[in-house]
């Protein structure tokens, strides 16, 4: 009975937050409902005794993906959606879309009896070696003491390592793509950098100062004739590398 209560409670939470998420006018309220959905997903994974995946959901969905959504709301001028007076259009686009989710939940509750009993097993019988039932699932859990972390590790490194390598390639492509799209190399290459190491190692001899490569505008005090923006000079890691080789970067 408690099992049924849990299922109905979680289903109603998901349905309610999904419908509100789509219908809310304020964007921040929609983000809060998305947060609630992610937490419910993580909680469900805890119910199925895959604790590692539940915590990873919390870490990556909440800690990273929701932060990206938040950045989108911050950067673009998105505050509220405009109130529409066209009720029929609203009903078609927002209301009817929600109806497509209902068969999924109906199937989930009433469809599969084995699914239900597995959830009962995993939620009610927590410490298996203290229970006295004789089903096959309990026997397997009597001899298997590995946690979800170890099982996931075995699966992705020993059983299907190709999946793991594909994930690595996807992450690599994502990194390269994000950098290619956003980095403006023109803006970064026009900066003049002061290198404190080189300046500190400069000798006080006027002859060596005059014969080294110095920009004439500095010691002849020629005024600048065109406007240029005040760029803050910070040394970059690659400049430390080049000065170690002995090459000037200004």
């Amino acid at each position, binding site marked *: 009975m408690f099992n049924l209560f849990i299922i109905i409670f979680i289903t109603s939470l998901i349905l309610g937050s999904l419908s509100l998420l789509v219908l809310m006018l304020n964007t921040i309220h929609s983000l809060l409902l998305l947060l609630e959905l992610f937490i419910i997903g993580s909680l469900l994974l805890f119910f199925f005794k895959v604790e590692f995946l539940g915590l990873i959901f919390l870490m990556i969905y909440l800690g990273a993906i929701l932060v990206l959504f938040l950045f989108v709301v*911050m950067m673009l001028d998105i505050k509220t959606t405009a109130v529409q007076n066209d009720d029929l259009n609203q009903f078609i686009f927002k209301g009817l879309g929600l109806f497509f989710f209902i068969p999924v939940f109906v199937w989930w509750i009433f469809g599969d009896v084995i699914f239900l009993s597995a959830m009962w097993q995993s939620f009610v019988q*927590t410490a298996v070696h203290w229970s006295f039932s004789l089903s096959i699932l309990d026997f397997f859990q009597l001899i298997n003491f590995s946690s979800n972390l170890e099982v996931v590790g075995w699966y992705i*490194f020993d059983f299907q*390592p190709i999946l793991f390598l594909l994930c690595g390639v996807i992450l690599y492509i994502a*990194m390269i793509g994000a950098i290619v799209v*956003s*980095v403006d190399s023109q803006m970064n290459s026009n900066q003049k950098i002061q290198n404190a190491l080189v300046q500190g190692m400069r000798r006080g001899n006027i002859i060596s100062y005059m014969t080294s490569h110095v920009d004439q505008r500095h010691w002849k005090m020629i005024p600048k004739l065109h406007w240029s923006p005040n760029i803050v000079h910070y040394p970059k890691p690659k400049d430390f590398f080049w000065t170690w080789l002995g090459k000037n970067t200004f």
Partner: protein
Amino acid sequence: MYQKMFLFICLSFALSCVLFIVSLLLASHDPYYEKMTAYECGFEPFQDARNKVDIRFYIVAILFIIFDIEVAFLMPWLVNFVYLGTQTFWLMIFFLAILALGFAYEIVKGALDW
């Protein structure tokens, strides 16, 4: 094992709901225009309070995701790579090398140089 944790989370959620609802019902609500709008030293607000946000913050967030997922893959390996043999060890080193290659590209291009 997790029932007690779930009960604890439910109780804390219920407590925060109780605090919120009690303030909603029992506190006096008297909103008027001067109280609800932004304060700009007595003037009407000139423009929107948000200013332009540089895209470098978003790049930091994206790179954080990628390395966070790399650490999340590192976790199950750390627990049982001793029992799984040399092939899995070199597999993980190869995965770290792929991401190190991407990191080298990011250093050279200067994506995190502000």
